């Protein structure tokens, strides 16, 4: 804010004789260069740029050769073979562009008119595999840290003019480029307006990642559940767009944000569409079951071992009780201890460099676990349950959601300790109510309620493509049908083959 104000004050007072205001401000940095292009006065061009921002390659090859000739700025503009050239007097614009890697050319040192040539040095990694959301089958392409490349990847998949891109700048200091992508004619305009409105309302100094934006425009920022999906998969984004979802792309972030979403979408992997619909249903159910296993198994253990010994069948009794006969702690402490240990191993595995992380997993998982059981500090049945639970928490294809699952079992363990099985189901009840209240862009988050018949086509279950014909109605899409064809296959329609 300060920058802007001082900028304006000085801008008004400046005139031809004084140094342009911007020059004075920028030249405070040592990497700012302001020089004359030749020793002779015939070609009196002054160029200004940040050494660290521009590509000297382009500067020397494509720009400098033209500056030796005696040309006006307009003539220069048409002759230099660089795409982005602006002719302006506006100081704000000049500062902004120089800071983004432009070269400013002036005829005379104190000239107001300025030619801005974008020769920014953009070094980004190449487009590569999606590493966090990898899949065995299907496209492997992942987004990178550059906005234009990311939009380019999406446009390649959806080459239609209806794909609208709305760009904005967010962040007082970071001036991050944020783009909102949506399909005009499919996405609900109300949703689009809400997203754009909320992004323009953001007042924050810096935006480093798309998750900043995602959590700033969430409906309920106190919720454990992510109300948007962050993805680095191009196919997921493209598929979402065609269903009427809105995508937020943030410059400098390889993760794109998909809005609005429902709970069940966190169980859908793009790989599901590569398999037969029966198989992919099996996998979806597996992931759903894994969520329950991960959040309920160790709390159940606590509840049953602490209060409800009646529930254990005679044949299991010996295994369960025998395994923790020598354990000195209450089941609650035992479980909490082991769960925290596993979480620590996981956390350390993520923070450490890749190669060390792998070996740490082995050390933590097997060696410590075995030693803890040997020492009689926990029962080995619990070790199995906790291991299973932590394995299960990673089956969700959405990384943010699997972290939610990772966390959510701790409050449940506490409730199980206080109220036994009643506490476990109290946790279930509270989560249910919370999910019912939760919305994503004002649309109900819990996809199970209210029931929509499109939920049976591709949300809870995935039917064969011939039966997925409608766009999901929870998003209020403008376009109802995904497929207009009858979807009939060749072959005898009503009878067996002859």
């Amino acid at each position, binding site marked *: 804010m300060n920058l802007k104000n001082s900028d304006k004050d000085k801008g008004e007072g400046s005139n031809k004789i004084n140094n342009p205001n911007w020059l004075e401000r920028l030249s405070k940095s040592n990497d700012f260069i302001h020089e004359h292009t030749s020793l002779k006065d015939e070609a009196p061009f002054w160029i200004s740029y940040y050494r660290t921002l521009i590509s000297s390659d382009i500067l020397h090859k494509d720009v400098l050769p033209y500056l030796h000739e005696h040309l006006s700025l307009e003539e220069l503009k048409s002759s230099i073979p660089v795409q982005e050239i602006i002719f302006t007097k506006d100081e704000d614009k000049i500062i902004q562009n120089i800071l983004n890697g432009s070269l400013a050319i002036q005829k005379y040192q104190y000239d107001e008119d300025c030619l801005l040539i974008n020769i920014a040095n953009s070094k980004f990694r190449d487009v590569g595999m999606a590493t966090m959301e990898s899949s065995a089958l299907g496209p492997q392409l992942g987004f990178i840290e550059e906005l234009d490349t990311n939009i380019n990847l999406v446009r390649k998949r959806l080459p239609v003019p209806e794909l609208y891109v709305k760009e904005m700048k967010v962040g007082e200091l970071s001036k991050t480029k944020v783009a909102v992508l949506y399909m005009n004619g499919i996405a609900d305009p109300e949703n689009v307006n809400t997203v754009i409105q909320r992004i323009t309302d953001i007042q924050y100094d810096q935006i480093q990642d798309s998750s900043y934006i995602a959590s700033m425009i969430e409906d309920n920022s106190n919720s454990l559940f992510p109300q948007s999906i962050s993805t680095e998969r191009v196919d997921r984004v493209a598929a979402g767009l065609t269903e009427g979802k809105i995508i937020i792309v943030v410059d400098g972030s390889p993760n794109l944000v998909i809005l609005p979403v429902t709970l069940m979408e966190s169980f859908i992997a793009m790989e599901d569409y590569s398999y037969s619909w029966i198989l992919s249903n099996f996998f979806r159910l597996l992931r759903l079951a894994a969520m329950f296993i991960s959040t309920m198994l160790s709390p159940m253990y606590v509840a049953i071992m602490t209060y409800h010994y*009646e*529930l254990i069948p005679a044949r299991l009794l010996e295994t369960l009780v025998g395994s923790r006969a020598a354990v000195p702690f209450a089941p609650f402490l035992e479980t909490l201890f082991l769960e925290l240990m596993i979480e620590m191993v996981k956390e350390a595995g993520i923070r450490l460099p890749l190669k060390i992380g792998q070996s740490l997993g082995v050390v933590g998982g097997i060696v410590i676990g075995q030693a803890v059981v040997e020492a009689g500090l926990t029962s080995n049945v619990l070790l199995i349950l906790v291991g299973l639970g932590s394995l299960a928490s990673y089956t969700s294809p959405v990384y943010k959601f699997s972290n939610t699952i990772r966390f959510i079992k701790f409050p449940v363990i506490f409730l199980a300790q206080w109220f036994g099985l009643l506490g476990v189901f*109290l946790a279930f*009840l*509270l989560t*249910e109510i919370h999910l019912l*209240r939760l919305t994503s862009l004002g649309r109900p988050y819990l996809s199970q*309620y*209210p029931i929509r018949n499109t939920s049976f086509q591709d949300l809870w279950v995935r039917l064969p493509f011939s039966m997925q014909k409608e766009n999901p109605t929870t998003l209020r899409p403008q376009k109802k049908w995904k497929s207009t064809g009858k979807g009939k296959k060749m072959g005898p329609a009503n009878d067996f083959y002859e």
Partner: protein
Amino acid sequence: MQANIRHQVSPYLVFFIIYNSQVGVGILSFQRTIAEKAGYDAWIGVLAAGCLVQAFIWVMYKLLGKINGDIIDVHTAIFGNVLGKSLSLIIMIYYWLASVSVLIGFIEIVQVWMFPTMPSWILSTIILLSVYYCVSGGFRAIVGMSFLSFIFPQILLIGLFIFPLKIAHFSNLLPIMNHSFMDMVDSIKSSVYSIAGTEALLMYYPFIRDPKASKKFAHLGVLFTTILYTISAIVSFTFFSEKQLKTTIWPELSLTKTVTLSFLERFEYLYISMYLIIISSLITLFLWCSSRGLKIIFNKKQKYTLLLLCLLSVILCHLNGSFKDMLNNIIIQMNLWVFYCYIPVLLLVLTFVKRGKQNDE
């Protein structure tokens, strides 16, 4: 007065609201009360009571459809502001007492079956906290709870009937219709109380998007609960011998004791824990009705009326046994007189009043 369309729910959801409002702690123990006089013919009484409730649904739809609002609108339209609101207040108190009796019933079950020393206030507080959280989410969240409580525990619990049916003695039901007419009336009376709860419709009617279309779902909902209660009665009757049933306070829980899986025994502990979800959604619905009614009557924020009701409920839960019987008696009497006698009369009055007005014009 119709509610804002953003807060309204689809007509088919009325099925789940009706189901939810009818199934509470009653289904765990009603088998004994209905069989008190009519013996093992009492399941016929349940079916008859179901028909009665269907008629009651029809009456309510007729009544509310004429005004196109809730019961408070009906009362003010007929009796004017002061008298109308005080009559509505009685109904709101009924809703509240009904939810308290469900809460007390559930606390008693938890204390007898799971935690004999658990203080009442803890359980009532945690249930009412979740109820408050749900009600503050608006009517859509409440209906969501009804829906989800049907999907998750209820369907599973119905599935549990398979286990007692394996050793059922169906000949227990014979001979059919071996009791006097008065005994049957008695069983109908107690069944009507057990499957009471549809009266909540009087408050949430304005929240249904297309009330006319919802009517058939309401009837279906009653049909479902009637069948559920009948099946539950028949399963208990075939599982227990008559004198044994009369010694059993919660037949439904006692027969869940037979459920054994290779990794889990004694399903009644899980049953009670899962019932927490059904109970909470029922209490949510009734406290919503009551607090919304009070909000309109006294022109206070629903936040405060709900908080007041919750606090009073926690206190009531602490009162002891004789109070509980009194409470149940009050509710039975109110249910009978207010809903099965007063509401039909109200419909007649309203019909004449309206006709009279038309004639005046």
